[in-house]
């Protein structure tokens, strides 16, 4: 009765890309990940917030790069051959986010996910959809699209931001 057939598991499980920021592990919807690459050749933009490192050329497309370590005041901000940029598709855009590291893709069933506590994580709990556990590992599951749409990310102009709030 408690057994799950593999097809049931396929339908209920969702896959998350896990990444590290500071001391914590986060998970984001794998379907929003376009690619993962290194950090190089970023063109700075005047008067942009500190966490907006600039833009890159991604095969002919201009993509903004946001350093999550700077935005959330986490980890040590270094740019070397190990620096990872996750290219994501959210809000109808292509955006790059710099994180400390990327790990596996983890499959989680609903019963492996618990509601997030009101405190504790560096990222505002408004953007946390739950805490997932897999192999003894705790993952902070993040609504990356909602996070990028937030006003303090300064990616959206105010009218667009209001539309997203109404839709939520």
């Amino acid at each position: 009765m408690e057994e799950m057939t593999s097809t049931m598991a396929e339908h209920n499980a969702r896959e998350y890309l896990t990444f590290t920021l500071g001391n914590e592990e986060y998970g984001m919807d794998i379907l929003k990940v376009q690619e993962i690459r290194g950090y190089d050749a970023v063109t700075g933009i005047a008067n942009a917030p500190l966490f907006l490192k600039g833009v890159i050329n991604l095969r002919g497309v201009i993509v903004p790069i946001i350093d999550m370590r700077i935005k959330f005041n986490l980890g040590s901000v270094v740019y070397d051959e190990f620096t990872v940029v996750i290219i994501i598709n959210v809000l109808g855009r292509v955006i790059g986010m710099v994180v400390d590291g990327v790990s596996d893709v983890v499959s989680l069933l609903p019963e492996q996910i618990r509601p997030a506590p009101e405190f504790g994580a560096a990222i505002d709990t408004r953007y946390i959809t739950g805490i997932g556990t897999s192999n003894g590992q705790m993952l902070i599951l993040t609504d990356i699209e909602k996070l990028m749409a937030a006003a303090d990310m300064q990616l959206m102009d105010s009218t667009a931001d209001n539309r997203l709030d109404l839709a939520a």
Partner: protein
Amino acid sequence: MEQPDQAVVMIVDAEGEQVALLVDELLNQHQVVIKSLETNYRKVDGTAGATIMGDGHVALILDVGDLVHLWRRQEQRTDI
């Protein structure tokens, strides 16, 4: 600005008047394809988009008319 007396002065026409811009160096003249910054980011004041240079890096395209407007607005605010 580090050494204003070491800068190159570039005189351009912006919407019918002449403006002098202080820059570090004049490099080259190119014909470029304008790529949108707004598609994935947003409109950046003073720019008209970006372009991809021969070596693959991104260069911003300045909109001198926009820069003049920004400067004028700032001047007006400080005069109050």
